Structure formats: structure tokens, C-alpha cells
């Protein structure tokens, strides 16, 4: 970046997604530092992903909605003012007055104030319990209100959503996620009147009603009734009534154009700051972008055209001549788990259009393509119930489809064909306006070799993610075309991927490394493939991991069934299922630690780690632990680690299910299961989620009706919250669901791929995995069940078994010719009453040293 001593001042009013995009794009393109930008953000937080607002209800934190890297705010040319609104614009002096009493001069001003949620002028709209649905705070208030009221009333709540459009169905989804039985009230004769036609609306209604949400269309709300200042119900124009404890208004949004009005800028008939195709307002140094901009006579409520406007303004600020090309109003959403997509000329408004419709009320699917009168060119379409064809079809709008249009509506990716030969200028990612050409180019010229690289380079698929399957196909096609072999090879010894190797070993019944590498590889293996095969053989239950040749396959920690520490000593973790331990158990562990001089620390998985054990001490330590009733905790393995639990309904005032009981049952069921990476589970006894289950590979959260199960969470380098897999399962179904999920993961994931990445990479993502696990879409359910049953039946404690085998124990000798002689280079100092490895300077500087941890620690 070139330092510019006197950058011009850009003030952006508004802190939404479009504002963020504008600042992002400016900082990416303004390499000379021509502009310094100040972002006035009325909400107390940085711009966040409003499109994903509803996911906040399924337990996400506000932080999860953060957009992109937070390092943007550290840029010296970017000033983010949170919780500060613009109160007035003086165009003559070119200044903005702010709510904290400052006056900011600008060279250019961008209005990105967005919209506010409209509330119809019905009586009772201001009662407590009436909400709108627009910001994180709206959503948080709604959640708090519902949870408090439910506790207060001690019964399930009823809710109503006024408005059956996109936002209304989002809100209904949110209420449903909060266990509120919900009615959607829509004035138009069908749901989502702006996006789908009557047929689509009807299909949508059936699907949504099947989920337990009631729908009233063609209904005008005349009044919200109250009791004690609180919402109690609704009255309709036809005289009907509805009882409701909470009402959400989602009847649409209105542009927040008041600043512009007061500043004397031209506004549209129905609101919105009028801009030309360069997004300039009637004042050439003031721009408007996003929902507040009235462009071509209307305001656009979707994020994609807003992003385009942001790019146009940035281009203009830097002296370019970019213009707004017109909006693509295509939408694909998953509302209440129902796919809805609408793209192009969905209502066949162009003369001479033909409509090809497939409607299957039994399968709950409605699909329509709008094509030109010769049935060749795609003009638009509506997909309800199954929108899998959307990613492939939307870029084809305005182009020749090829073949019978109806063929593109057949289920199971029959429309997948066009991906490979998509035209260069076809938009693949409409959120970030990335064309097929740009994606191909990132591979051919940009040197990207995988999806992650392409995402980072082009931003394709980084917003809503719906185009990712298409991006993946494009990347793979391009890599193959350019002669790059898309290699799944594990290492130089095997051309197969882990999943392929797993299948081969399983189907051919191979049980030794030598057999496997003779038949499917070359050489004698390495530190990559040997642990993989060791893990596969262990997953398939071929016997103890340290028996015979298998001992030579085990990675560092499995090698001696303990965790190697920096000085070459080990730590030991006995299993404490569910974190429940008796006083006697605690005393036994304490005595072992004391007798062997071990450093003790409580782990994040609700158990106790004992550090500083020398290799030759491990069998003696474990003899003591096994005799005290403990077993291996597999802290050393790529395998089930722990099932963390909160105390649950047995003690807790709020618990609704016995989380400890379930956690123990699950931990005992899956203990010892070897997997591509470590697996952690959590069980919470109520929605307060004290077990942090959503940070686990499998998280179970109790509901009034059973258990919700979430998958794909983890902490670590890239923290992820687990996503909802299934709701309100009984315990038996829950266990079968987890059985299948885990076993499917064990069989098909890559080496060292945790469940989050596996779910993301899986063809079709979480939906496809849900279909496999819950609906047995691959017909392997019984096989997975059998495999897990085999694991449960075949489990033995690895440490108890090792202690019974003299040949295995022999390998724990410190030296082959002096098996009990300690490594005399292990030295420790005392810190807070416990040993820790001495540092280099302590070793040479003569600090107090303890040779080996078994000597008494000086306190």
C-alpha cells in the first residue's frame, strides 16, 4: 500500500452488509490509499450477516453472524464507529453530524442506511409481545421474551406472524425453533406472493403445514388484542380470532431515507433515495446503495444487488465508470427446512413465454420453468420443495437450455449437466457476483487447486453458500482439463484416499498392513499412511492396536497409549464417563498421581490429566488405575474422547432431561471407536446449554419432548458451531441417529478431517447426510447399525488388555537392555506445588531440579 499523506474523506452512513461490502471493496481496490473511510454504524456491533438472522435462534451467537475477517477494522484507513448514528447531513459544508455530537467533514458521502421493518397501523401493535424482525436485537428480544413468558406461564406458547413473505416465513421458522406453535397470517391469497405463483404457494403451504405451522392466507389483520398490556390474541377483518402470546410483524420493509429527505435529496414516490445508474443521488458527492437506494424507480430488498451497488460506487470513487447492470432478483432460501427458489422471469411476464410445470403434491414438490416460445431459452423458474436444480439453472437464464426443459426438473441432479460448459459470463455466485469465467480463471491463472483456494481468491460461495456444489464441479472440471490430476492419494505409498482405502479394506476383509500395502500400495509406508491404516483396522475391530504388526502402525500417542509431552514424558487420562466420578475414584486418581509424582490438571473434557509419567512407568500406573476400576480414556487416540455433560434434570432446577445419564450411556457406547480424527460429544439437559454441546462433533440438547441433535461442531483453530441434524428425537432414535452419523463419518471422511469439514465437503452437505442418517437414502442404514453394534460388542479396555500381555508390556521398557532405568535427562522444577519440565536456562543455571517426577516434590 502506498501511503497517501492526505487521503480524501469518505463517510459511510449505515453498518449493514452492503456498507461492509463497500468498505471491503474500497480497501481491496484503493491500493494508493486515496480514501480514508469512516463507517457510522448505528447498531452497537460491526456489520453482520442479516440474511442468516434466523440461525441465531437455533443457538448461534451474535459473533457467528460476523461478516468476513475482523482485520478490516484494524486497517488504519478504516474507522468503525459503533453505536453512532448520523443525525443530519449539511450538503453545503459537506459535513455529517453524529449522535455523539461530532461533525465529520466528507469529500464523498454514501448513504447505506437500509430499511426499517414496517408495522401496519393496527390497534395493539405496541403491546408487549409484539415484535418486528430486522436486527440481532429484535431477534434477541423476541427470544428473551418467549423464554421468560414460557417460564412464567408454565405452558407452551402460541405465536402469530403477520406476513407470509420471505421475512414472515423466516420469522415463523424462528418462532418454531423456539418451540412456539405458530400461525402465519398473509393478506395475499398465497404465501410468498412476490416470489412464487399460486401453484408454488400451494405447495409451500402444504409443506409448511406439515411442519406444524398453521397458515391463513387471504386474511387481513384488524387488531392485536391485549391483556395486562401484553399481547393475548389477534382479530381479523372477517371476524375470526386467534389466541397468541407473541406477534411478529413481517409485512415488509421501508427505506430509511429520512436523512436524505432532510438534506433535500430527491426521494422516490414510495420512498428511497433516488439514484442514477452510477448510484449517485441528485448531489454528485452523495451516493446511496442497498435497500435505501431507489434505482430504476424501485428499492431492492435483496443483498446481492446491494453488493453490486457497493462495487459500482467504489469503482466511481476510484475514477471508474461502472454502472448498475440491473438487479438479479433470484432467491433461494431454506425456510423452515423447505427449499424455495425463484429466479429470472418467474411469473412469465414476458409475452410468448411457455411454462413447464411439474407438481407432485405427494412428494411435496412444485417446479416450474419459464421458457421462450420455442421452448429453447430459459427465462426463469420457481422451485418449491426441492431446489437442488437452482444452482445449475439460474446461471442459464437467458440462454439455451439444451434438450427437453422438463428433463431439468427431474429429481436427483438431472439438471447437473450444464455445469461443465457454463458460459464464461454466467454468474455462479450471485451474492458476490462471481462468474463461471472468474472461477475457471482462478484455477487456470490464479493457481488455485482446491475449493478453499477458489473461495479465498474469488469469494464465490462465501456468503450464502448455495452455489458451492456448482463451484466445486467447475473447479474439478477445470483442474482435470488443465491436466492437474485431482489427487486423493494418501501419500507416496498409496494412490487411494482414506475413504477408498477404508472400503477396500472392509470389503476385502484385509487385516494386516503388509497385506494391504502389498495389494494396494508400494514400499513400507510412512508416518502418514501407517496411522491411517492402523486407525482403519481398529475401526473395523481387528484386535488390539499394539498386537503384532499393528504396533508398528501407531502414531506417537497410540504407540504407547499415552500422550507424549514436550520433554518425552507422557500424560495419562483415565476415562471418566460424562464427567461423573465418585469420591473413591477421585481419591484413587489422587493417590496414583501422588505416588508417581505426577502433575495433575483438570481437562476441558471433564476429566483429569496426569503429566510427567515416564514410558516405563505407564504399565505400573495403569495397573493401579485399572485395579481402581478405571479404563483407558483414549485421550491419545483419534477416537471418541469425551461426552461432556451438564448436571441435568437429576439435580438442576432447570434441567428437563437426564443429561448425565445419557452422556454416560453415549460415552460407554462409543468409547474406543477409532475415527479419522478425534470425536467429542456433549449433552445438555436444557436449552441453556451448559455442556456447550454445540461446540462438539455431536451435540445433544434436551427439549421438553426429547432430544435435539446437532452435528459438526468443534473448538480449536477453526471453531465451528454444530448444526441441527434432527429435533425432538426419543432416546432410541437419537442413539441410532448418532450411531449412523458417526459410523458414516468413520467410513467416508478424509484423514484428519473433523466432522465439520466432512459435513461441508460432503456432496449435498448436511442435507445429504441427514438423508443418509435419518431416511437411509443410500440403503446402508442397516449396515451402519451392524457396524456400530459390532463395535459395542467388541469393545475391550485397551489398557487392561495390554496389562495382560507380557509381549506388549515388554515394549514399555525404557531401554531394551535396561528396561527399568529412567531417562536421566528428564528434570523438573516445582511450580505452585507441582512439577513441571525444567527450561533450558534452569537446567544450565542450576535452578532447583528434581531428577524424575517420582522423587518427592519440594514444596
Amino acid at each position, binding site marked *: 500500500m502506498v501511503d497517501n499523506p492526505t487521503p480524501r474523506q469518505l463517510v459511510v452512513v449505515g453498518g449493514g452488509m452492503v456498507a461492509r461490502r463497500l468498505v471491503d471493496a474500497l480497501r481491496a481496490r484503493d491500493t494508493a490509499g486515496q480514501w480514508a473511510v469512516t463507517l457510522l454504524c448505528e447498531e452497537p456491533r460491526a456489520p453482520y450477516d442479516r440474511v442468516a438472522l434466523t440461525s441465531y435462534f437455533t443457538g448461534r451467537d451474535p459473533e457467528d453472524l460476523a461478516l468476513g475477517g475482523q482485520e478490516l477494522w484494524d486497517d488504519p484507513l478504516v474507522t468503525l464507529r459503533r453505536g453512532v448514528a448520523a443525525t443530519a447531513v449539511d450538503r453545503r459544508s459537506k459535513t455529517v453530524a453524529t449522535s455523539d455530537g461530532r461533525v465529520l467533514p466528507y469529500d464523498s458521502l454514501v448513504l447505506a442506511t437500509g430499511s426499517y421493518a414496517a408495522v401496519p397501523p393496527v390497534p395493539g401493535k405496541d403491546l408487549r409481545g409484539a415484535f418486528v424482525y430486522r436486527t440481532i436485537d429484535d431477534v434477541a428480544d423476541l427470544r428473551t421474551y418467549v423464554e421468560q413468558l414460557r417460564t412464567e406461564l408454565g405452558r407452551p406458547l402460541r405465536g402469530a406472524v403477520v406476513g407470509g413473505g420471505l421475512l414472515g416465513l423466516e420469522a415463523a421458522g424462528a418462532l418454531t425453533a423456539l418451540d412456539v406453535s405458530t400461525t402465519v397470517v398473509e393478506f395475499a391469497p398465497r404465501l410468498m406472493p412476490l416470489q412464487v405463483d399460486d401453484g408454488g404457494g400451494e405447495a409451500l403451504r402444504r409443506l409448511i403445514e406439515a411442519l406444524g405451522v398453521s397458515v391463513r392466507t387471504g386474511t387481513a389483520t384488524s387488531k392485536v388484542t391485549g391483556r395486562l398490556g401484553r399481547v393475548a390474541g389477534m382479530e381479523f377483518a372477517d371476524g375470526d380470532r386467534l389466541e397468541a402470546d407473541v406477534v411478529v410483524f413481517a409485512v415488509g420493509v421501508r427505506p430509511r431515507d429520512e436523512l436524505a429527505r432532510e438534506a433535500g435529496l430527491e426521494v422516490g414516490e414510495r420512498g428511497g433515495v433516488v439514484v442514477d445508474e452510477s448510484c449517485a443521488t441528485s448531489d454528485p458527492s452523495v451516493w446511496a446503495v442497498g435497500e435505501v437506494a431507489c434505482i430504476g424507480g424501485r428499492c431492492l430488498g435483496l443483498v446481492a444487488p446491494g453488493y453490486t451497488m457497493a462495487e459500482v460506487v467504489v469503482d466511481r470513487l476510484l475514477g471508474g465508470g461502472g454502472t448498475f447492470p440491473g438487479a438479479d432478483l433470484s432467491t433461494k432460501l431454506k425456510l423452515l427446512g423447505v427449499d424455495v427458489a425463484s429466479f429470472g422471469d418467474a411469473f412469465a411476464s414476458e409475452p410468448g413465454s411457455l411454462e413447464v410445470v411439474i407438481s407432485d403434491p405427494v412428494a411435496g414438490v412444485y417446479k416450474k420453468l419459464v421458457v421462450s416460445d420455442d421452448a429453447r431459452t430459459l427465462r426463469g423458474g420457481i422451485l418449491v420443495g426441492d431446489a437442488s436444480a437452482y444452482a445449475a439453472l439460474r446461471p442459464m437464464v437467458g440462454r439455451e437450455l439444451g434438450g427437453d426443459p422438463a428433463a431439468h426438473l427431474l429429481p436427483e441432479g438431472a439438471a447437473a449437466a450444464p455445469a461443465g460448459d457454463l458460459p464464461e459470463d454466467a454468474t455462479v455466485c450471485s451474492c458476490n457476483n462471481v462468474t463461471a469465467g472468474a472461477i475457471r480463471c482462478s484455477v487456470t491463472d490464479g493457481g488455485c487447486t482446491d475449493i478453499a483456494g477458489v473461495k479465498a481468491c474469488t469469494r464465490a460461495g462465501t456468503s450464502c453458500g448455495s452455489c458451492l456444489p456448482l463451484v466445486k464441479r467447475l473447479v474439478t472440471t477445470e483442474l482435470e482439463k488443465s491436466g492437474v490430476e485431482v489427487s486423493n492419494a494418501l501419500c*507416496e*505409498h498409496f494412490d487411494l484416499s482414506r475413504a477408498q482405502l477404508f472400503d477396500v479394506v472392509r470389503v476385502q476383509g484385509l487385516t494386516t498392513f503388509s497385506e494391504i500395502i502389498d495389494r494396494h500400495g508400494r*514400499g*513400507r*509406508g*510412512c*508416518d502418514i499412511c*501407517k*496411522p491411517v491404516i492402523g486407525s482403519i483396522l481398529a475401526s473395523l475391530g481387528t484386535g488390539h492396536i499394539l498386537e503384532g*504388526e499393528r*504396533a*508398528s*502402525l501407531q*502414531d*506417537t500417542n497410540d*504407540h*504407547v497409549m499415552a500422550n*507424549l509431552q*514436550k*520433554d*518425552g514424558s507422557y500424560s495419562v487420562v483415565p476415562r471418566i464417563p460424562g464427567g461423573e466420578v465418585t469420591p473413591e475414584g477421585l481419591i484413587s486418581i489422587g493417590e496414583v498421581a501422588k505416588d508417581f509424582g505426577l502433575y495433575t490438571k483438570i481437562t476441558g473434557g471433564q476429566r483429569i490429566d496426569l503429566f510427567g509419567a515416564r*514410558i516405563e512407568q505407564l504399565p505400573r500406573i495403569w495397573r493401579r488405575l485399572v485395579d481402581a476400576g478405571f479404563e483407558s480414556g483414549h485421550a491419545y487416540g483419534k477416537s471418541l474422547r469425551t461426552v461432556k455433560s451438564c448436571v441435568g434434570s437429576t439435580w438442576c432446577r432447570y434441567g428437563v432431561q437426564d443429561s448425565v445419564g445419557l452422556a454416560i450411556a453415549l460415552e460407554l457406547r462409543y468409547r474406543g471407536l477409532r475415527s479419522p480424527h478425534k470425536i467429542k460429544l456433549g449433552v445438555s439437559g436444557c436449552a441453556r446449554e451448559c455442556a456447550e454441546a454445540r461446540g462438539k462433533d455431536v451435540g445433544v440438547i434436551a427439549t421438553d419432548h426429547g432430544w435435539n441433535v446437532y452435528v459438526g461442531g468443534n473448538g480449536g483453530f477453526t471453531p465451528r458451531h454444530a448444526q441441527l441434524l434432527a429435533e425432538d428425537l426419543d432416546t432410541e432414535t437419537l442413539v441410532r441417529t448418532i450411531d449412523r452419523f458417526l459410523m458414516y463419518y468413520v467410513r467416508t471422511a478424509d484423514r484428519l478431517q473433523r466432522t465439520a469439514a466432512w459435513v461441508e465437503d460432503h456432496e449435498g452437505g448436511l442435507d445429504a447426510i441427514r438423508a443418509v442418517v435419518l431416511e437411509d437414502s443410500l440403503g446402508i442404514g442397516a449396515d451402519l447399525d451392524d457396524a456400530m453394534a459390532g463395535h459395542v460388542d467388541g469393545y475391550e479396555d485397551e489398557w487392561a488388555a495390554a496389562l495382560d500381555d507380557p509381549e506388549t508390556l*515388554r*515394549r514399555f*521398557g*525404557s*531401554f*531394551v*537392555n*535396561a528396561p527399568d*532405568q529412567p*531417562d536421566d*535427562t528428564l528434570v523438573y522444577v516445582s511450580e505452585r506445588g507441582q512439577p513441571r519440565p525444567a527450561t*533450558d536456562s534452569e537446567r544450565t543455571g542450576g535452578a532447583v531440579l528434581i531428577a524424575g517426577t517420582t522423587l518427592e516434590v519440594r514444596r
Partner: protein
Amino acid sequence: MTIETTAPADLGVTWHEVCSLKSLSRERGAAALVEGTQVALFRTFDDHVHAVQQLDPFSGANVMSRGIVGTRGSVPTVASPMYKQVFDLRTGACLDPVGKEPRSLTTYPVHVVDGVVSVGLPGGQGAR
């Protein structure tokens, strides 16, 4: 009976009997204490025995014998159990420093006579 010498010249080393070949598992190392020096012994799949320093030069811990034995092309290798640097068992050369400055391992000559493994340490006149 296996007879093997990994060092061509025995001059200048003193040989020390360490253990039986049988006590070494194939493709799994073992530490040995030879006159106070920690040595890592490896018996490869084809029954060659190699000896290198037990000290991992990257971590400073005596752990090399606990690494995974394998091959790179035709080269017998061991990977450090600590940070996974890969070494040539025959020469001690570092084949993959995992982003660090390469450091090699000291190697020691090995004899296997009548099923007994001996390691040569520097010094002396080749007496056994």
C-alpha cells in the same frame, strides 16, 4: 543366522553387545543404553538393523526410537514422534525438516552376529 554390518570400517569403534535381534520388533524402534549413551535401534522389514541417536535434534527429547519406521522410495526412514521430521536411517540425514533448518542424526555402526545386536561407539581399536 544374520550377519550384517552397517559400517564398512570397524576401525576406530568399540563394539558393545546390546540385545538379541529377537527382542527388536520389525519396524518398531527400541531405545538402548550403550555405555551411558542413548541410542535408538530400528529393525526394518527386511531385518536390517540401524542405530541413530535417541535424542531428537528438533525437540531435544530422547524419543527417536518411538517414531514411525517406513520408506521414502527405497530409503529406510524414521519420523520423529514429536514434530514429524523425517530422517534417513542409514545416514541420519534429515529428509523432511518440516519447515525448520535441517539437522541430522548421528548414526552408529551395527553388527548382528548369531542373533546378537552390537553397536559400535567411537574410540578403541575395533575390539569386541
